[in-house]
């Protein structure tokens, strides 16, 4: 039976949320303008209105989750993003797999932030909340799903499947409810995908806070005062967004197959750029607080960071990237709406900023080379140029779309070698940045002239040279570019560590945010250099096969073909593919797939054999995501097993085939990363022609490439799955097949009932053979077997060593700690000033 209540309820709450957002915006603007007498009642009204908005926005989320959680596949959203086999924590990922869910998440975070702001601010409440409510109105409009004439406003997640598709089944039976959904994209079935999107969207949402303070400041003519309350939020936003980006990178590293953590994909660039601008704005805001310079730059940067987040959303979700990105978001018809959203806030912000421009205080005094303002300004500019370099080529598809919308033709394409193209700039910008942070920090904490600067830089300089030399010699870094990176990275770490130690000695840990974050930057730089610059593919094909044309031989074959059980040499290791495995509920290790047979129920299998102490033959085993196969790859050194990796692959018809995830062996100083790029498909084998063998007991014979022994036969008293009647004869033959170090027992069966012969062949999909007992020749004492071959199981695999990748991950953690410390310090300052009644 179709449940229409939840959907209608969800749709209703969406409408309420939309209307209440507009009402809140209006009410707060009235509250702001109202005289002393009316102020209180307007404030109460505004708040109530915002609470209603907050409640209804939360209820939208609850309704959508209810649909997914209770597997209501009559709804398009649940049908297309979820399935019965999904565990609960992945249902959470289903929630934001679709764009509508992502918008709901975003709106929800805005509500949370709004509630915090309402209760932490006095003066700023009204102007900030006007901006907030307007943004909310735009966001909620994305999921309104209202059609006015030909105009479709928003795409509702609460539409029924029968309204979303014109499938013929609904003509026959309008109440048809599909048994199961089409499932969640397997790439998103990962724990990082449960926490990465909410983090990223909290980052997105929080860029609104500094922007709202800025707009509030410009409207209320408090041109400079907005910075203090905005600053802790700007740092918070940079921290969360940075964390979201890192989680995304880590997710890509552990689940995607491109062999790394960062690919300069348009979608990645689109979040990286606002983050850089955000970081730049933090620096100029801090400078302004100390020395009343860089206000104009701060204003420009804060506006840019918010607009760039909207632009990123537009790029990713409007479908404009089309075939330029592997992250394919289909166009929901929201691009126009997103563009209006973007242009509205851009125009408002530019208008207000231009109007205020001549009233903005500027310092006439030229910043001295020995002033911190100078160095920070340079840093902010470098960050600006960095983002410019990334956003420009990333926007090429948008540029093409723009040209085409005016009737022109543009065939520009993004750079063919993205990684090389972006790296050659970003790397050197990062080097400049790292140097600026170390020098800048010294200027920051002390008044410095030429002499003291030289004095205070000598010690870190010498120490970092010594440490770098050690690293260069021990890790064999001989490329001049990489040597420069080690030097600058090390200098950043050492110089900032000096500052950190000095600060800790003199005052509290509260001031340490900056130097911590910069130490993190140095570590990230070195970590990236090693893990990417010295990443080495060890799965070079050494099969020695040659091709007809010579140029193909010269190309590096970075994959290696592994036949099952066959040892293959790969750099320092011998690797052996050992077959497919499944993950079962409550069993800490993988279970060989060949001893499990599907029961036809979702995620359920019958055990064909005993397996260790975990289950017995005939037991029902619960599987975790039955479509997932884990390919067991043994790594041996000196003929001793070192470790096994189990890269995952899922064959998913609904999602368009095969999806794979890597598995890594993690060492302290490197990762060994392995993934499956192609595999045997034995679902529907094309058996080759029959081969017949006549053998007697104990005889050795060759089946396909294997040596086989016929060990004899036995008459069966009972047979699984068959009831033997009086007079039936069942004979089971025992054939041992040897494949390298593996011995397999294949037992085809032969039944005679009422002079009729039945044959139960045995299929071994790992070896790719089918054997049936065709006949028994008693007079010759021979058995006749029919054998069909397909092909042995195999995987094509790639293995990469990534040295010192842990330095990168630790660096990011250090940087995030730095941000956190800074948030606390700045929020503390704000609270003190607020309580004095100044703000």
């Amino acid at each position, binding site marked *: 039976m179709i449940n229409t209540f939840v959907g209608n309820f969800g749709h209703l709450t969406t409408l309420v949320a939309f209307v209440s957002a507009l009402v809140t915006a209006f009410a707060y603007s009235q509250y702001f303008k109202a005289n002393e007498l009316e102020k209180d009642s307007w404030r109460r009204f505004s708040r109530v209105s915002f609470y209603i908005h907050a409640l209804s926005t939360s209820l939208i989320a609850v309704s959508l989750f209810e649909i997914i959680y209770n597997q209501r596949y009559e709804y398009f959203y649940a049908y297309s993003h979820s399935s019965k086999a999904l565990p609960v924590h992945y249902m959470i990922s289903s929630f934001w797999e679709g764009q509508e869910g992502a918008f709901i998440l975003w709106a929800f975070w805005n509500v949370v932030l709004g509630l915090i702001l309402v209760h932490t601010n006095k003066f700023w409440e009204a102007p900030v909340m006007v901006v907030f409510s307007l943004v909310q109105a735009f966001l909620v409009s994305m999921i309104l799903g209202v059609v006015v004439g030909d105009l479709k406003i928003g795409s509702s997640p609460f539409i029924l499947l029968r309204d979303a598709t014109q499938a013929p089944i609904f003509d026959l039976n309008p109440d048809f409810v599909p048994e199961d959904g089409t499932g969640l994209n397997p790439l998103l079935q990962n724990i990082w995908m449960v926490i990465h999107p909410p983090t990223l969207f909290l980052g997105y949402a929080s860029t609104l806070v500094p922007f709202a303070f800025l707009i509030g400041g410009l409207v209320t003519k408090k041109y400079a005062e907005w910075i203090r309350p905005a600053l802790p939020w700007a740092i918070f936003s940079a921290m969360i967004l940075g964390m979201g980006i890192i989680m995304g990178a880590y997710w890509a590293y552990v689940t995607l197959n491109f062999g790394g953590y960062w690919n300069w994909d348009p979608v990645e660039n689109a979040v990286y750029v606002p983050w850089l601008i955000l970081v730049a704005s933090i620096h100029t805001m801090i400078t302004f607080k100390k020395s009343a310079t860089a206000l104009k730059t701060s204003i420009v940067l804060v506006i840019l960071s918010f607009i760039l987040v909207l632009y990123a959303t537009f790029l990713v979700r409007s479908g404009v990237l089309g075939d330029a990105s592997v992250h394919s978001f289909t166009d929901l018809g929201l691009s126009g709406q997103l563009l209006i959203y973007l242009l509205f806030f851009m125009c408002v912000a530019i208008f207000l900023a231009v109007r205020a421009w001549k009233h903005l205080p500027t310092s006439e005094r030229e910043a001295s080379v020995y002033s911190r303002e100078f160095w920070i300004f340079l840093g902010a500019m470098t960050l600006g140029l960095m983002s410019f*370099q990334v956003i420009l080529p990333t926007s090429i598809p948008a540029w093409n779309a723009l040209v085409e919308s005016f009737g022109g033709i543009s*065939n520009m394409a993004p750079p*063919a070698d993205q990684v090389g193209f972006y790296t050659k700039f970003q790397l050197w910008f990062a080097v400049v940045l790292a140097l600026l942070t170390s020098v800048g920090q010294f200027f920051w904490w002390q008044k410095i002239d030429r002499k003291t600067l030289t004095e205070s830089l000598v010690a870190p300089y010498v120490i970092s040279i010594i440490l770098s030399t050690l690293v260069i010699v021990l890790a064999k870094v001989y490329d001049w570019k990489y040597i420069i990176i080690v030097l600058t990275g090390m200098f950043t770490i050492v110089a900032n560590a000096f500052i950190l130690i000095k600060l800790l000695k003199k005052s509290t840990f509260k001031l340490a945010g900056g130097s911590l974050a910069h130490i993190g930057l140095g570590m990230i730089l070195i970590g990236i250099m090693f893990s990417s610059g010295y990443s080495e593919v060890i799965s070079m094909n050494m099969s020695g096969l040659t091709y007809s044309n010579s140029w193909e031989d010269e190309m590096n074959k970075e994959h290696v073909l592994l036949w099952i059980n066959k040892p293959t040499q790969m750099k320092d290791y011998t690797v052996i593919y050992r077959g497919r495995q499944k993950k079962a509920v409550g069993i800490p290790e993988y279970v060989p797939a060949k001893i499990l047979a599907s029961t036809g129920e979702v995620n359920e299998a019958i055990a064909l054999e005993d397996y260790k102490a975990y289950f017995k033959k005939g037991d029902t085993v619960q599987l975790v995501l039955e479509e997932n196969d884990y390919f067991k790859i043994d790594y041996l050194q000196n003929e001793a097993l070192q470790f096994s990796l189990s890269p995952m692959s899922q064959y998913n018809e609904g999602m368009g085939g095969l999806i794979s995830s890597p598995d890594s062996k993690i060492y302290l100083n490197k990762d060994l990363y392995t993934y499956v790029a192609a595999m045997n498909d034995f679902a529907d084998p094309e058996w080759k022609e029959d081969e017949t063998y006549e053998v007697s007991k104990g005889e050795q014979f060759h089946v396909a490439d294997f040596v086989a022994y016929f060990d004899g036969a036995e008459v069966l008293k009972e047979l699984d799955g068959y009831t033997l009647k009086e007079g039936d004869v069942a004979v089971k033959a025992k054939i041992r097949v040897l494949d390298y170090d593996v011995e397999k027992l294949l037992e085809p069966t032969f039944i005679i009932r009422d002079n009729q012969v039945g044959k139960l062949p045995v299929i071994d999909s790992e070896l790719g053979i089918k054997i049936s007992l065709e006949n028994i020749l008693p007079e010759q004492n021979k058995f006749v077997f029919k054998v069909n071959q397909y092909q042995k199981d195999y995987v094509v695999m790639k293995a990469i060593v990534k040295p010192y990748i842990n330095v990168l991950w630790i660096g990011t953690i250090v940087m995030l700690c730095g941000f956190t410390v800074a948030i606390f310090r700045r929020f503390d300052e704000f609270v003190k000033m607020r309580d004095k009644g100044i703000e």
Partner: protein
Amino acid sequence: MKKGHLIALGIIAVAIAIILTSIGDASSYESFTTALEMRQEGEDKAIHVVGKLQKDAAGQVEGIEVREDKTSFTFMLVDNEGTTQKVFYNQPVPADFHRSEQVVVIGSYRDQKIFVADKILMKCPSKYQETDVQAAGI
């Protein structure tokens, strides 16, 4: 000249350098015909060609030849102008390759006969097609 101006000049110079290299390194969408012409003129920059896999009368993809070690393959791509071209890709066959509606190959002509793709982008059919609903439901 003031220091501020110097910095401004420096920034503008870097910005211009960025714009120029972006244009210089930007690839382009071509057809096989224009790609071959570019190659003959000595241009060996990687370009994008958008096309579809060659299909037989029954709508089955044809012309995919996997090398013996399964780590590379060739296939036939029909570009938007209808030119059919053999393309070599030095990677195993991507899993959903046969199903892709559209293929973008990024690379260049090796010689007159074969186009070598450094990278392949695939556009796969939307995962929920209207007619699929029934099949999924039963």
